[in-house]
């Protein structure tokens, strides 16, 4: 079947309702109802084990005594078991870890809010509007992705020095909001899968494009918006390079760059490092768990289809 066939099928009149089980899913016809879930579970468990192994190692290391963390015969379970690394992390008198968490949290929240707004606006323009310069502008955004990051650091650094913005959070907040090509691209690709018939119907009813954007496109795009929010959280929360280059005041540090100091200050302190990495991962997992219901909710594409 080709794409054209798919299109025809889309326009075909609805047939008699499919048998639906209590969760609202169409019953699988060919695959047995028991074999399906079991195979899925087996696959999931295997993949999850592969995925989780290093995290277990990190978690376990964070409860080990310093000498046990790096050894040629690693043990999965810490023995002796100790909270020493976590205590050191919180009160070491030099690196205020709680403060790092606060800095990271406020920067991350601001970037997520700002980026969703800027990227969604841009994505709507690129996906839905016809105007002069649109394709050239999109080409410019794509081209900017191809500039090696390494190359941007030097000129930006000297520009921030001149503007007095070094050792502030400006370079970590404003550019990630207004110059995010990835998010714009992601949302554009998603907006393009939303049927145009919705906009056209609204336009006929006299709605403005801004109105269509806010009341039709955004509500239908929750999976993509949630995805961008989670990925932004991960990127900003884990960003190491930016804070390392632009910050020097310890009180302004974010979590990753603060953690790195456990590596350089007096040789590598793997214990506190792993404890910090473990704490740092918790918010990300929470955000993911909270946001993921939007990934799988599905858009109710009723009406036209």
């Amino acid at each position: 079947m080709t794409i054209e066939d798919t299109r025809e099928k889309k326009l075909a009149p609805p047939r008699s309702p499919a048998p639906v089980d209590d969760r609202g899913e169409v019953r699988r016809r060919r695959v047995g109802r028991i074999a399906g879930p079991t195979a899925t579970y087996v696959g999931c468990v295997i993949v999850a084990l592969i995925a989780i192994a290093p995290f277990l190692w990190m978690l376990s290391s964070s409860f080990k005594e310093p000498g046990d963390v790096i050894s040629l015969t690693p043990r999965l379970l810490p023995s002796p078991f100790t909270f020493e690394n976590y205590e050191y992390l919180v009160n070491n008198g030099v690196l205020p870890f709680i403060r790092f968490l606060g800095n990271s949290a406020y920067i991350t929240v601001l970037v997520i809010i700002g980026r969703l707004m800027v990227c969604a606006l841009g994505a709507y323009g690129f996906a839905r509007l016809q105007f002069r310069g649109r394709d050239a502008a999109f080409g410019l955004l794509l081209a900017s992705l191809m500039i090696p990051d390494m190359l941007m650091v030097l000129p930006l650094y000297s520009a921030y020095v001149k503007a007095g913005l070094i050792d502030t959070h400006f370079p970590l907040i404003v550019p990630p909001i207004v110059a995010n090509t990835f998010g714009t691209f992601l949302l554009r690709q998603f907006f393009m899968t939303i049927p145009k018939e919705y906009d056209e119907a609204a336009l006929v009813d006299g709605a403005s494009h801004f109105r269509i954007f806010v009341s039709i496109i955004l509500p239908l795009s929750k999976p993509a918006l949630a995805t961008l929010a989670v990925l932004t959280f991960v990127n900003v929360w884990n960003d190491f390079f930016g804070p390392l280059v632009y910050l020097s005041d310890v009180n302004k540090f974010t979590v990753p760059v603060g953690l790195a100091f456990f590596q350089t200050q007096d040789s590598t302190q793997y214990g506190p490092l792993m404890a910090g990495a473990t704490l740092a991962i918790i918010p990300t997992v929470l955000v993911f768990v909270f946001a993921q219901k939007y990934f799988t909710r599905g858009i109710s594409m009723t009406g036209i289809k």
Partner: protein
Amino acid sequence: MTAQQTVTARRRNLRGWMFIGPVVTGTLLFNVIPVLPTLVTSFTDWDGLAAPKFTGVSNYKEMFSGQDPLFGKSLINTAIYTIGYVPVGIIIGIALALLVNNRLRGMAVIRALIFLPYVTSLVAVGVISRWVFSDQYGVINAVLASFGITGPHWLGEPSSAMAAVIVTAIWANMGFNMVIVLAGLQGVPETLIEAATLDGAGRFSRFFHVTLPFLTPTIFMLLILQTIGSFQVFALILVMTGGGPGDGTYVYIYHLWYEAFSLRRMGYASALAIVLFAVLLAVTWIQNRLSKRWVFYQ
């Protein structure tokens, strides 16, 4: 064109730019304008400190006349990494997304676990991967040994080291690809899948003829982004192999970094960056042209 039409066209252009204005201005201001001087620097012998001296095309000559063997070597290594990582990474991302795109009990936890490697700090990824691929104590060789196979010294041989890096990259990013494809899957109209099911289409038929066409914009985006990202791979190499053994995993950005910050040859590094940009532009242009054959937009 009548005056009325001109006004309408102008208004339409203005409206379009009001939507894309912020992101375009931001990108220009922070990503494009700052690097424009690189074009100039690439024709000089700048060391990052002293005043640069104009040297014509000598930096480019050095690359293409074979005076810098690491240029070609690093470009080839980067291409191998990209070809090894990008397609497999995307296919695994699709497979995982399909695996977890259901409402079975416990799926939320499974999805979060698969996403974990992507959020684990790179420092930890580096340490764990060196342990997993260690020749004597590594998990992989232990498994091979149980089948009576003597595993290679993964990170000690150039070709197997590259394989180990690619496997680690696939592993570390599978959660990212899964999440992007999951979002794309939500755009596939359920009614269409139901209709195909009623017509007697099996699982594979439903996937290839209904789901996949709707996923092509997402796959295309992943292909573009991951290719661009792979050509710029650096941090993973730094924490895993340091470019070694020998020059086995010495990738392009590693070379750029080495020239810029170890040898302080900013002029030459700028020229390297310009060439990379040109390569990526060409690759993306080709991908974009080819996309018209297989990407399906509504």
